[in-house]
């Protein structure tokens, strides 16, 4: 039994589904944020798997790994800004529960 690309794609898809379920089901804004990170990582896993699968001159396709590098960088910046917003929100409302933060809800 050898490993194929589909194994990695399935794990990546399951990881994305878990993160997606977390965003849909959880009501704590920090947990929702962690689940966003899970989904970004799922995308990274499939990118790296494709990079290893599509060999260029016997080497992995490094364009995909550079894209993963960019995704990780953007995700780190996103975490910093997002957590700053959460802290500002907590100062204003003293809650991290999304159902208590519904001023913009129609």
């Amino acid at each position, binding site marked *: 039994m050898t490993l194929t690309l589909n194994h*990695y794609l399935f794990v990546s898809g399951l990881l994305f589904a878990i993160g997606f379920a977390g965003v849909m089901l959880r009501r704590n804004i920090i947990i929702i944020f962690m689940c966003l990170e899970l989904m970004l*990582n799922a995308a990274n896993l499939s990118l790296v798997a494709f990079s290893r699968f599509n060999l260029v001159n016997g080497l992995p396709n490094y364009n995909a790994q550079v894209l993963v590098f960019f995704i990780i960088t953007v995700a780190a910046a996103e975490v910093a800004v997002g957590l700053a917003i959460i802290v500002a929100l907590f100062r204003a409302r003293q809650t991290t529960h999304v159902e208590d933060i519904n001023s913009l809800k129609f």
Partner: protein
Amino acid sequence: MSPILFYLFAAMTLVFAIAVVANRNPVASALSLVVSFLGLAALFVGLDAYFIAVIQVLVYAGAVMVLFLFIIMLLNIQAEERRKINLPAYVGGGLVTAAFVAQLWFVLQKYDLGKTAFAPLAEKHVDDVKNIGNTLFSTHNLPFQVIGVLILVATIGVVVLSKRELK
């Protein structure tokens, strides 16, 4: 990567990802997320992406998770109390997720190219960092500098957001 190791680390990644969603205590969720990211880094090593694996551990399991734990403890969030479950939201979220997983399964059944095994690399040891560096600084030089500007903007944004009163 041997299949046993693959299944071990894939199971570790997925189980602790589920623990992130299932835990009621945010600190336990954050620590589960660290373990999940470490499993993912091991999967990257299995795909011969050593540089990405190291970056994953340094940036995600290191910096990002310290930031998460710091904020959780700064805000002093306890395990959330049980609230009335919003049943339609739960059923809807579960259904969409199940539909996604089912669709993934059927698409991967039809994807014949993905059923072939990974071809071996030309050399046993790849110069991972050197090759990524070459690609990053030659082909993708402009995006790299744009990312630098993005991080600068994010830093300024965080400082502005963290000030006591926004004017």
